């Protein structure tokens, strides 16, 4: 029952045979070996699987790969351009916005979407925009600072 899908992932055109029931996150992790996108829950809440599909943040665990046929996907591996870190990546390091790193790719992708929509978010807006991303390590304090730092760099 496989289908052929064509997706652009991190700028590269990819073609693959997938079962319709294969989740996008599993397609990325297993078929494309892009293991930077993580699975942290099974109720579409934790956000560790957040990627960008056609420019907006999406939970890759709540999409099937076949739904992405014809779409452009950006994962954490594709965020940096030309080898330089994206300002958010640099800011997360600068502000110690990560500890174990497991929520970090999803957190950065969600933050990238936030800053694209609202480049001058307040602290409250940042915290609310992270409603779909859990962190168990940092208490979010430095994550907020990292996003504020990146917003400053990007403005």
């Amino acid at each position, binding site marked *: 029952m496989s289908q052929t899908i064509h997706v652009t992932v991190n700028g590269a055109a990819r073609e693959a045979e997938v079962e319709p*029931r294969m989740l996008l996150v599993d397609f990325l992790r297993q078929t494309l070996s892009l293991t930077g996108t993580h699975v942290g829950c099974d109720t579409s809440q934790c956000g560790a699987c957040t990627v960008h599909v056609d420019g907006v943040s999406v939970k890759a665990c709540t999409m099937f790969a076949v739904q992405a046929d014809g779409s452009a996907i950006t994962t954490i591996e594709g965020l940096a351009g030309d080898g330089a870190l994206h300002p958010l990546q640099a800011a997360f390091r600068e502000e110690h916005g990560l500890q174990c790193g497991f929520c970090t790719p999803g957190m950065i992708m969600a933050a990238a979407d936030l800053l694209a929509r609202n480049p001058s978010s307040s602290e409250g807006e940042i915290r609310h925009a992270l409603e779909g991303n859990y962190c168990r390590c940092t208490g979010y304090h430095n994550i907020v600072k990292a996003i504020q730092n990146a917003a400053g760099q990007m403005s």
Partner: protein
Amino acid sequence: MTPYAFEYTRASSVDEALALLDGHDNAKLLAGGHSLIPAMKLRLSNPSMLIDVSGISELAQITASETAVHVGALATHRAVETSEIVQAKCGVLAEAAGGIGDPQVRNKGTIGGSLAHADPAADYPALVLALNAAIKVAGPSGTHLIPAHDFFLNLFKTALQDGEIITEVIFPALSARSGAAYAKFSNPASKYAVVGVAAWVEVDEHGMCTGARVGVTGAASHAFRASNVAFDLSGKHLTAETIAAAVAGMADAHEMLNDLSASSEYRAHLCSVMAQRALTEAAARAMG
């Protein structure tokens, strides 16, 4: 878990979607997928075919006429939240959409999908009831409109028949001297509404209430109109006192859901609190 296997196809028009639905037993429409896919991952929902309608672009439009805002069934929550048309003509809808789930969910979830799924704690049903929206449905026997008060029947059950698809939701534009607001008390875990109250009021040139509707979600097995509250306010000035009196005891604890997130008694209390907040804000908007 991985869902059970299914076939996947895309429909590029409403007619094609209807034909596919008609031609396959146990097929389901897939829009944003953020109600359906979680259920499939729990293996609670096991369609043998998914008909992806998300590419039917005419269903994603948001347009305005003189008197109404037409929200295409495939408009994402984020599209509704950020639509200038919605913000101008029916601002409460944009505000409520902005509180659904989280940003990632809002990028995919659609109003049509949400209404068809009819989760008793979803936000849109309260808005649909308070704003007296109409749900436009296409089916094998043509299109028809289902008024808000006929739409929500029971837990996860609507007036939508098998083989039908929601195409748009029509919200009357807010007239001058009317105002609407939505107050939601969220479940801290799921972020669904423990109680969500949408209030719409209309006043005359003397500030007297000529119309009110209160839609409540999250509190019972399906969204409902608190007609007693609306009735109480009719013909009165909307003050802190009249609002407080109208909402006091508005919900019968016996009819409230009782679960881990809130007892019936607390839910009934929250109905009054959220109704008070929604009505207060709606009144301010109507008179401002």
